[in-house]
């Protein structure tokens, strides 16, 4: 009878612990480059984060055109594959800066809108802290807003559309609840700037490459 009880206990214990042991074995290790993440609902990790930060132009003419070297930005980024080695980042980035205008009654704002996609290499895709690097392509539009510029002689066009090539690196922290915090640095190369004259009367336009430092929080599943 005692032997039966012991066997019964062992069978029960092994039945209870077996799934846990199997689960632990299935979970990728910290340095794993496995292409699935069993702990997440999607199996690969899909995150959506919302944040803000600072941005600026790298070119002196553009920096001179806006009233401050550093402007504000806000962004929304969706990452498909946040827990596998290679992910797709889809992002919207908005920026705003004041124009260095002639007088207080002349107000102008440079409003930027960027939609971009990037391939992202997750260096530690299965660890809670994941450094990553990315590069991609996007569309960027700038609009000069502010009615007073309609009565201004300036080398600034009303609007500009161009192709941009974002590239950079960041680090994401993810916990088991699905919370995501992200720090991100981007250099955005602008392929065809056509907004601000390079110099007075010039038919060339100032380069519009930008840098960005941003932080964001969100959720992944």
């Amino acid at each position: 009878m005692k032997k039966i009880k012991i066997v019964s206990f062992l069978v029960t214990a092994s039945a209870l612990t077996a799934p846990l042991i199997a689960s632990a074995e299935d979970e990728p290790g910290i340095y794993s480059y496995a292409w699935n993440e069993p702990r997440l609902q999607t199996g690969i990790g899909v995150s959506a984060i919302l944040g803000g930060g600072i941005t600026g132009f790298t070119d002196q003419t553009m920096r001179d055109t806006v009233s401050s070297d550093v402007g504000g930005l806000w962004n929304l980024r969706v990452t498909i594959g946040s827990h596998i080695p290679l992910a797709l980042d889809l992002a919207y980035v908005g920026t705003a800066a004041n124009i260095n205008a002639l007088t207080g009654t002349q107000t102008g704002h440079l409003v930027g809108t960027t939609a971009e996609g990037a391939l992202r290499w997750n260096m530690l895709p299965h660890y809670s802290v994941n450094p990553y690097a990315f590069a991609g392509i996007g569309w960027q539009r700038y609009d000069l807003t502010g009615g007073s510029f309609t009565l201004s002689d300036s080398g600034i066009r009303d609007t500009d559309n161009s192709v941009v090539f974002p590239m950079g690196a960041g680090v994401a922290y993810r916990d088991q609840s699905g919370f995501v915090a992200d720090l991100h640095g981007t250099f955005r190369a602008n392929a065809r700037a056509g907004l601000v004259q390079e110099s007075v009367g010039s038919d060339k336009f100032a380069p519009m490459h930008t840098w960005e430092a941003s932080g964001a929080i969100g959720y992944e599943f």
Partner: protein
Amino acid sequence: MRGLLLFLLFAGCGSQPSSATITFDPCTPTIVASPTASADQQASIDDAIAMWRERGVTGLEIGDRPMVTIAFRDAADAVHGFYDDVNATVFVNLRLQDRAQRAVTIAHELGHAFGLLHIAADVRPSVMNTGNVTISPTDQDEAELATLWGACR
């Protein structure tokens, strides 16, 4: 429906006002002055007035009690001039060092004071082209002014 769409399209652009708030008849006396102008800046103002006089504008005069004030301020290189149509003041960028470029900029802003709006460079060359610092008032600018106010002579 199509009409509504066209209305919404153009209403959304909104970049060109129908006219400035304060405008001046180019044929009636309009006193222009810049109390703080340097000799070089004053020379550009004189040149700008001469450009419009060549196009039949008879009203522009230099005087002590300005109806249109010309002021010089610092701004980004890309911002050449601005007509403040509420205070009837022409602002010109201090950084414009070339006398001829400064004169064309002042002529452009005086064009706004006469009620002229921007003309896209691909439509025709005009003193009212955006970013213009080289084209003085043209025959067509004169004709447009005459359409607005009638010919002065």
